[in-house]
């Protein structure tokens, strides 16, 4: 005896099949979208889509900086150039670059001064500090939601549209390079640099080695603005680049070497 399927049963099966097909494809679509957002967009380059702002990395590069603390006069021109270049909140109490004034013969952060008024004093030396773009960045390891990562050219970036604002990366940064937007940043429209996105409130931001400039072959704003040419920037993989040359010729040191963060800013004295 053959079993017959009634029309009613057939329609029912059709309905169930159709519903699961639509549901399934919708779920797949969602998953694909999530995948794109998370992996392609999130991991490989600074977030694209509505917040695309960074050019693609130049293949084979590894950016580094050398700062000549013997030449540095502590004028803080780099700090202010960076402030304007990166659309930092005009009311912010932070700058990406901190210039510490220390007594000659001493390296003591705790006794350093950042609010000095007279520059280029005989009895002091000056050291600018900013994000070191560590090869082994504790801030990236600490971020609970993978909203910050190290790019292939070594620049540590933040997805401002993903950061939940827990500020755990600030705690994990030994160089105090990261800063939080406690409110909606205010930048006068005529002063906005269109190449750099203005961050929303409640996210962390920091120095990006001027990713929008350096990936197009220009120097970061701090390097360009330095009146005594104390800052040098270039590709560490290229033996002919200014940084590689200086590192070969002079004796460098790095900050907090003992923490194993492997920073990519060297100082030479």
């Amino acid at each position: 005896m053959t079993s017959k399927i009634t029309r009613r049963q057939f329609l029912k099966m059709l309905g169930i099949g159709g519903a699961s097909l639509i549901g399934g494809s919708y779920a797949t679509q969602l998953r694909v979208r999530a995948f794109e957002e998370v992996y392609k967009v999130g991991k490989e380059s600074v977030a694209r889509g509505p917040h695309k702002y960074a050019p693609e990395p130049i293949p084979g590069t590894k950016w580094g900086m050398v700062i000549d603390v013997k030449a540095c006069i502590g004028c803080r021109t780099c700090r202010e150039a960076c402030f304007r270049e990166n659309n930092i909140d005009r009311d912010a109490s932070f700058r990406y670059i901190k210039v510490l004034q220390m007594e000659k013969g001493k390296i003591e952060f705790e006794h350093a001064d950042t609010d000095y008024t007279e520059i280029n004093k005989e009895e002091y030396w000056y050291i600018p500090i900013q994000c070191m773009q560590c090869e082994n960045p504790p801030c990236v390891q600490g971020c609970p939601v993978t909203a910050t990562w190290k790019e292939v050219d070594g620049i540590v970036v933040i997805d401002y549209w993903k950061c939940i604002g827990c500020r755990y990366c600030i705690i994990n940064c030994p160089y105090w390079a990261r800063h939080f937007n406690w409110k909606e940043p205010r930048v006068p429209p005529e002063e906005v640099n269109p190449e750099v996105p203005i961050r929303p409130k409640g996210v962390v931001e920091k120095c990006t080695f001027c990713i929008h400039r350096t990936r197009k072959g220009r120097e970061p704003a701090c390097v360009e603005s330095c009146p005594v040419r104390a800052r040098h920037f270039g590709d560490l993989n290229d033996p002919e680049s200014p940084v590689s040359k200086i590192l070969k010729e002079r004796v460098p040191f790095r900050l907090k070497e003992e923490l194993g963060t492997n920073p990519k800013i060297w100082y030479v004295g």
Partner: protein
Amino acid sequence: MRILGVELRFNELKNAGLRYWCFVLALLIIIGVGVYSYYLQLKYGLIITGMRDIFTWGFYIQNFWLFVGLAAGGLIIYSGVNLFGAKQFMPTNKIAVLQAAVCVLLAMLFIPIDLGNPQRVYYFLLTPNFDSIFVFDAAVLNLYFILCIIDLFVLLSGRATHNLELGLTIVSLPTAIGIHSITAWTIGLAKAREMWHTALMAPIFISSAVASGLALLIIMLLIIRKYTDEYKFEDEMFHSAGKLLATVLLVDLFFLLSEILTTYWPYSETPGHSMRLEILTSGRYSPFFLSEIFIFGILPFLLLWYPKTRKNITVLTVSSIFVLIGVFLKRFAFLGLGFGINPLGHTGVYVPTLPELAITMAVWAIGILIVTISIKLFDMKTEPH
């Protein structure tokens, strides 16, 4: 009325007096003010709090640490009953587990409150970073909350058998230890902050957590005994709880001594460490820290250590309150150690603002409200089985 075997005593609520409902109303008003303050915080950002660039975490995280700690005490008493046959604590079973559940809930509430972008919190599930201990902290807190609810359900629905309770304890006790350890490690594993980067962080969190949890349980039981007619707890039970509290305090003080010694001993001292601890011992926050050690640490320990004073219920109450205040101050001391001087040597100052306090008060009120309602709605008494 019974739902899933849990008796809901709406009659008790109906018969509750005016005093009870006035109390509930007061709590609701506090919650309302807090919710409005939180709305302001969402609108204007965390600028309305006292937290700033150098002092990046504040009152919210201090409370988060406190409540994670308070969540332990109850469960540790409950485990004592099941694992070690501490029969004298049997009548507190349900209340102890309720305390654990409510406290861990409040602790978890403080996390989204502290976030700059709480609406993105789903990224914890979408793209968790397993290098970050923060992810494990979130996971273990949620697990602990679920376990507490299961425990509570088993106890309230009368399904509890000795073996089932034993089984649940064996799962939830390590989780209780886990929430403290992992919460402590969120700061203890940060190599960037010298004073936090110590292996002692987890043990010291656990010891002060248990002390504060026990103290809260004692206070709560005393209040319930005083203001309700149906709950009766023996004096002997409070005496042994007091003894336990004294022991835990001793351990806690020992850990503190160990940390201070490591920081200040001549050939152990490093400037980075001693400079940061000096903020607490002789600097800006020294009134908090010194009173935390002497008035809210050593004094209650001595009072609870001597049998004569321990057996006085008033002394026990005051000591428990002191212990709670002490642990609260200690959580602030931890903040000061990490943020008082930042890794570049800049000094940070922190004073909580009014909206911040209002939001925190509201979270506290939510917890007290849940307990207030639960005491009437559920039968929290435990008969030995």
